[in-house]
């Protein structure tokens, strides 16, 4: 495509006071030889925008360089026809607001940013979307309260749903409960289980294609065009699917794994799930297993295996409530009954505090913190529970007819559920404790597989109310996914991005780095080991681009060559000038905005730094480091999100991969007689903008210590 550039420099918002705009115009017109260059004191005004539009129309400008504010603002103002490429040069936040006005170094910084912007605009093209025939049907896996709610909500929004349930009936665990927790204000009274209503709604819904006693044999393809094989009664049905909600729920933790509580040995030690069955059988009357005697006293033991690093390290969030619920079964049937609850901490989230208060007020319910030291079975099959560290102030024993163990929730993720035909594995990757999370801090339901969303207890231990909220949220995400896929755009976190990686296969060496390192399992392999990209599975992070040693992966507007050219356009002063040049690759998700916020707060930092935004640190190709160092850049910082435990990387592994690659690079640098300290990976949260000046100064001091880049004079 023939490029015709137009450069538009804004002098508003202090830019004109900080730098000499005329000198910038000279750089554009003189040095860069671009005749179309206009300065304006308020480019984002209707008049300013009109100037650009006029040039597009009359002069045929198809690559617009806007040298004004951060690309994070006025996105819409400077959006033109999709065929027009727009490059934003951040003169406001990154120059005028964060550096000393009218200073020589500030001027040099602005000029470099103009050069970099022009270079990028010359090389980059507006992306053409990946358009395929997208099926917008949503697959819901699991027919419990979460799955059914998800299905119903999706159909309400006008989408077709395929619902697959393993068991012959819908309803999941809820069908087994005798009563449910209060669902409406004032959250004090138990309610009847109303799951039948939801089941009927699903059965009657013409937009829900229901498969019970069915399992998923395989899921192949990519979002928008998944081929899902469903096995039912010995036959296999194939469905075209756009996106998936996983609502496979939970399993109770095996109480027998917790020693010393007599489960499995003593007839009258049962679990909370068994308690529900007893309540249903007795229609509310609680009879103990050993002799069917109606119970007069029951001890509930909380956190059986939960919040214990040897069992389930997390809190299941519903067991305390379940015990309070079951305490009311007993008390409601027998006013003389005594119910004891021995807890680690009573945890009754949100409005359920009211239910806790209600049950606490019952004179027959006795609560204490405590640790169980043992349970003894007496001759009459009653049990004596020994407890230490109680709130009573001494070790106590309680004699009871029955003991109920409050076991926690285990996510149903371990067996073959989705059978994804992905190179990286058949199931959803798990983050912690078997939950298929992806640690997208502000974005629940996201998994590490694009367009597959987890909801309900498979995502986090939850009560039915939270499950319903989850179900609705995940349905919405699934809808967003199919809609974005249908226009060839990326989903979160680069929502609406139309670019996607293009592989120049002739040069591929089948090294498999891209297929292995893709955080979303987007790239499969053919028999020879060549990558088979699936653009709709892709999040456009560029980790594959960073990984590729042959540099065959590129986006229309983001490639190894584009960034290389940008950094090569930086003017590096000679050794005699004693001006260092530091290059910063800043992650667009957190680090780049942090620099913007630093600017907004007028935080002054070192002007010898040149910032290049990258989609993710994982997209940084080592060749950029080599290019920068060979150009005489004195030091390079890669600033991205926290990695490792509790990582904050928006692409899961990007910053971690960058760190690993830079570790590998150290050896190469040493061979080139360059100090490895010249390249540093750093973490910066979006809120850490105030740390920037010191970060820069410390690194600058280190580079000063090392001296200028010895390759400068070459």
């Amino acid at each position, binding site marked *: 495509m023939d490029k015709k550039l137009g450069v538009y420099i804004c002098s508003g918002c202090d830019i004109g006071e900080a730098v000499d705009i005329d000198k910038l115009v000279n750089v554009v017109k003189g040095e860069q030889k671009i005749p179309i260059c206009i300065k304006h004191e308020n480019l984002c005004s209707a008049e300013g925008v009109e100037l650009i539009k006029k040039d597009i129309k009359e002069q045929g400008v198809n690559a617009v360089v806007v040298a004004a504010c951060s690309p994070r603002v006025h996105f819409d103002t400077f959006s033109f026809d999709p065929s027009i490429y727009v490059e934003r040069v951040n003169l406001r936040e990154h120059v005028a607001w964060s550096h000393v006005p009218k200073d020589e170094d500030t001027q040099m910084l602005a000029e470099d940013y103009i050069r970099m912007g022009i270079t990028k605009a010359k090389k980059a093209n507006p992306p053409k979307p990946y358009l395929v025939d997208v099926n917008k049907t949503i697959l819901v896996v699991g027919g419990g309260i979460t799955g059914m709610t998800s299905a119903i909500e999706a159909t309400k929004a006008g989408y077709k749903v395929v619902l697959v349930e393993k068991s012959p009936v819908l309803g999941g665990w809820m069908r087994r409960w005798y009563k449910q927790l209060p669902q409406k204000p004032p959250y004090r009274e138990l309610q009847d289980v109303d799951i039948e209503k939801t089941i009927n709604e699903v059965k009657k819904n013409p937009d829900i294609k229901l498969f019970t006693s069915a399992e998923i044999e395989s899921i192949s393809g990519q979002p928008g065009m998944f081929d899902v094989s469903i096995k039912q009664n010995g036959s296999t049905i194939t469905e075209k699917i756009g996106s998936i909600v996983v609502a496979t729920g939970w399993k109770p933790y095996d109480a027998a794994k917790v020693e010393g509580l007599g489960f499995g040995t003593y007839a009258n030690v049962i679990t909370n799930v068994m308690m529900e069955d007893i309540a249903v059988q007795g229609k509310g009357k609680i009879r103990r297993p050993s002799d069917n005697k109606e119970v007069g006293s029951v001890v509930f033991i909380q956190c059986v295996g939960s919040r214990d690093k040897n069992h389930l390290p997390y809190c299941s969030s519903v067991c305390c409530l379940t015990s309070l619920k079951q305490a009311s079964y007993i008390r409601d049937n027998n006013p003389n009954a005594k119910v004891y609850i021995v807890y680690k901490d009573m945890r009754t989230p949100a409005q359920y505090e009211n239910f806790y*208060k209600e049950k606490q007020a019952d004179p027959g319910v006795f*609560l204490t913190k405590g640790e169980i030291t043992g349970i003894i079975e007496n001759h009459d099959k009653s049990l004596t529970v*020994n407890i230490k560290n109680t709130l*009573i102030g*001494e070790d*106590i*024993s309680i004699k009871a007819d029955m003991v109920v163990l409050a076991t926690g929730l285990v996510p149903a993720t371990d067996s073959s559920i989705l059978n994804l035909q992905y190179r990286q594995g058949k199931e959803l990757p798990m983050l912690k404790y078997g939950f298929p999370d992806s640690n997208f801090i502000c974005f629940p339901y996201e998994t590490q597989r694009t367009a597959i969303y987890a909801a309900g207890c498979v995502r986090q231990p939850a009560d039915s109310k939270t499950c319903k909220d989850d179900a609705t949220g995940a349905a919405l995400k699934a809808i967003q996914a199919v809609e974005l896929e249908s226009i060839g755009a990326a989903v979160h976190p680069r929502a609406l991005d139309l670019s996607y990686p293009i592989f120049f296969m002739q040069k591929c060496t089948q090294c498999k780095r891209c297929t292995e390192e893709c955080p979303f399992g987007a790239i499969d392999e053919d028999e020879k080991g060549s990558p088979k990209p699936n653009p709709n599975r892709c999040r456009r992070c560029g980790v594959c681009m960073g990984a590729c040693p042959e540099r065959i992966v590129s986006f229309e507007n983001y490639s190894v060559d584009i960034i290389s050219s940008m950094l090569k356009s930086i003017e590096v002063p000679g050794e005699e000038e004693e001006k260092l040049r530091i290059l910063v690759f800043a992650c667009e998700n957190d680090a780049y905005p942090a620099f913007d916020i630093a600017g907004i707060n007028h935080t002054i930092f070192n002007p010898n730094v040149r910032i290049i935004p990258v989609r993710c640190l994982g997209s940084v190709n080592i060749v950029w480091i080599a290019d920068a160092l060979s150009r005489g850049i004195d030091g390079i910082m890669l600033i991205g999100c926290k990695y490792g435990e509790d990582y904050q990387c928006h692409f899961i592994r990007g910053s971690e991969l960058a760190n690993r690659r830079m570790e590998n690079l150290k050896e190469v640098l040493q061979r080139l007689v360059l100090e490895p300290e010249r390249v540093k990976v750093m973490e910066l949260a979006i809120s850490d903008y105030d740390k920037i000046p010191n970060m820069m100064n410390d690194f600058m001091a280190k580079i000063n210590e090392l001296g200028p880049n010895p390759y400068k004079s070459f």
Partner: protein
Amino acid sequence: MNSGPTRIRVFREVNMANNVIENDVDLIKDITKLGGGSLKKCFQCGTCSVVCNLSSDERPFPRKEMIWAQWGLKDKLLSDPDVWRCYQCGDCSVRCPRGAKPAEVMAAIRNYSFKSYAFPKFMGKALSSPKYLPLLFAFPVILFLLVLYSIGALSSIPAGPIAFTGFDTYVDVIFLTLSAFVLIAIAKGVVNFWKNMDQNNPHGPRYGEAGIYNSIWLAILEVLTHRNFKKCEANNIRYTGHLGIFYGFIALFIVTAIVFIGDRVFHMPLPMSLANPIKILANLGAILLIIGCLIAFYNRLSRKDKAGESYYYDWLFLSVLFLIGVTGLLTEIIRLSGYAVAAYWTYFIHLVFVFFLIGYFPYSKFAHLIYRFVAIIYSKYAGMAEAAEDDAVTEETKLKSVA
């Protein structure tokens, strides 16, 4: 800081079998009825024990009393001296995040104790509910009417200056007999209380360094100075009221003792002149008592948010005290103004209230005087209470927390 010798704590040998819990559900209901209706709201955060200026680090209260009450652990509550170290200032109730009002629960536990330690038992019950109130008043009224009838005073008003001496022998007999009964009843209650405290002392029958005489002396000092009462914050007006009632009562008690001995032994001329120092003390005492009671009434009626709810035990005791003061003073005024009939009948009513106060002493809230006194002695004797009650230490801690 306390520079005493290092204290070595000796625990009772750990019993291999734990205490098997027995919950007395009736106790929970009783305490609820006696003013502790909020007790089940407590979720054991311990804020109450932290904000209490009287609670000690070693034996904090009222957190533990709250769960004992919730669980219906009667033995623990009845043998706990800490229940009596609380002056119901309300600091804990004001700060309680759950509205559990520990101060009211503690008061209810004390009321429950009057009933539990009562001898004979039926008297405890009689004082716990308003339905027996007419009976309780009817007894002294009938008794005194019988006396008056037998000496013929009902039919004719004695001639001459108004004096209350003619009735004295009978009054003496009645009140001395009554006092003997009361002493026996209270002694029985106190002995049981002491035994219970001793048996359930988790640190064993090991006593502090104070010694019994020293403990009694320290307890007397504490009661006379209201030293700990003064530390209350939320409801400090209560301290002022109590001080008035307390010293008014002491003054009247002393005057009564002097007059009794002076009249019966030394045949002191009665009535005394208004300028007589003893008479001045008597009138001062009566005024203090009445003012104290008025403050208490005001506090209970108009500052419920801080003072907490008041219950039958509170109103009965306060009303009787107040009416004794008022009828006493009225008797004097009417006597001085010369209305014989009115003077004699007012005196009659006065005596009925005095009978009520003294006769039902072990079973009414009045008994807090003795149980609290004994509990303070025990706390000091058993070395349970020094930490917070040592002013120097408290001041130092406060300074530290400020620093």
